[in-house]
């Protein structure tokens, strides 16, 4: 653990000095602020407070942005060390390989958490300034924060796994873009296409679709963080066996970071630098 903290301290310095922290914060703050201002207009019409309306938009934004930031932070974590020759050195130190991954994970997780807290904080601040917020909406924002951290953690782990598996920063960057596009965009398009084909309510929409939906961390995040009214609406539309699904998305969102870190660990174990 001491070793992981030693790696984390320097990794966090690197995020700070490479402006990765700064860029992540800027992205989250700008988008959150702008979305909140936009939502404040429609909040009155929907009969909810400003922060609730803003949070719904923030959830949608985070599905795209958080995985992107996480992959940008993580894609060169292992391949970069390999190319600089420092991985060979570190692996001769009396430190378990997982501590290297876990140290980087702590630092990048902290970077992401700072960006999310500031971004969502700005959303709360703007809501209070130009509209309204409530205890419920604040609690909801916290749930969003927790969900986004888990989503980010999953993609950090995925980034390390790709980095260790490809052993080259260039290839890792390519696979990271591909993974982002697939998980966040194409996967949903494919599911929608499946629903369109299977209009009569055949086995795809009834049996496979719900499971496919919660299997994807981005969709699991959506399900976990949708305001309850909307979640009910969604499940009445698509998810038939609501009871089985109720804990499903949360379990999926918790399992993904663990699974990805294990994958990253297995990939780094295969490296003979």
């Amino acid at each position, binding site marked *: 653990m*001491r*070793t992981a903290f*030693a790696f984390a*301290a320097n990794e966090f310095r690197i995020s700070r000095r490479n402006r990765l922290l700064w860029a992540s914060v800027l992205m989250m703050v700008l988008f959150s602020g702008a979305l909140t201002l936009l939502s404040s207009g429609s909040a009155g019409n929907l009969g909810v407070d400003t922060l609730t309306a803003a949070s719904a938009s923030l959830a949608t934004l985070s599905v795209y942005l958080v995985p992107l930031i996480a992959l940008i932070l993580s894609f060169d974590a292992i391949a970069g060390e390999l190319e600089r020759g420092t991985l060979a*050195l570190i692996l*001769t*130190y009396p430190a378990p390989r997982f501590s290297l991954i876990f140290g980087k994970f702590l630092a990048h997780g902290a970077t992401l958490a700072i960006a999310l807290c500031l971004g969502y904080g700005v959303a709360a601040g703007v809501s209070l300034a130009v509209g309204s917020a409530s205890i419920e909406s604040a609690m909801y924002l916290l749930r969003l924060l927790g969900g986004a951290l888990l989503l980010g953690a999953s993609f950090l782990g995925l980034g390390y796994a790709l980095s260790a598996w490809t052993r080259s920063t260039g290839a890792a960057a390519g696979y990271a873009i591909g993974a982002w596009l697939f998980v966040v965009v194409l996967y949903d398009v494919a599911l929608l296409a499946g629903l369109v084909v299977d209009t009569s309510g055949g086995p795809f929409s009834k049996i496979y679709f719900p499971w496919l939906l919660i299997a994807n961390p981005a969709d699991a995040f959506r399900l976990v963080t949708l305001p309850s009214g909307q979640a009910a609406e969604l499940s009445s539309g698509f998810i038939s066996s609501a009871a089985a699904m109720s804990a499903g998305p949360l379990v999926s969102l918790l399992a993904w970071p663990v699974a990805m870190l294990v994958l990253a660990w297995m990939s780094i174990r295969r490296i003979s630098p």
Partner: protein
Amino acid sequence: MTLQVSGASIVRGGVRTLNQVSLSVARGERVALVGHNGAGKTTLMKAVLGLWPLDEGEVSIMGEPPGSKAAQERTAYLPENVSFHPALTGREVLQMLASIRKDSASVERLLERVGIADAASRRIGTYSKGMRQRLGLAQALLAQPRLAVLDEPTSGLDPVSRNDFYKLVDELAGNGTAILISSHALTELEAKTDRIAILRNGHLVVNDTLTALRQQAGLPIKVRITANSMLTDAIAESLGGRRINGQSLELVCAPETKVKTLSRITELGSIIEDVDVIPPCLDELYQYYSAEDQQ
């Protein structure tokens, strides 16, 4: 023996990059691993460090298998061309590594000792090659290693840095650390190592002290005489040899006739101003042993 390698082989992509190599390094001994690019020096070092698994043979570091925690705690490594993250400072990198080795107390002393204390708060991106190499050596000195594996540590360094570098290596050896150091620049290793191991295409072709290698090879020794320019021709007539300029004469003799030749020179008395004895340099030895291997 601090390091014992017996019959080590590594096969990479169908090629034996290391072939039945046996080598040992004792406490406080400095062994130079010599060979040109691709000879297998780095491969042998990575096998010793446990980074690459052996296909045959065995490595033991004070009785422990390579890559085990016990071996890692006692072994220092300086990789070939290592470049630490340019956004970090030298001190930050050394502190991180020191904390893993549980030797944080030595950080400032080591920065001072390798001569980068003044630059320690600057980013590594601004360091010269020599400073990066010094930082690399500083981490190899952490926690008093029992074995130091240094892969071409002086390539690209200027002569002054190189000398500083060997001074630190001598100090390390003086404290009982076994040192395995690789190089393809051979002449710089003269008088800086106790034993030379020459690798060629993954084979260990030579493994002996420099003096023993010189004797075995029997390469001719050069004797250079300086005398009054009026007399060089006369001396050349009596001793043989070749004039190389107005005042100097070069004789070539076999190692076993060296003493005899020198006594003939001293018999000439005061007309001789100076005598230099030039033993075969490491480059010549290396060429001799490489050629022998080819036959």
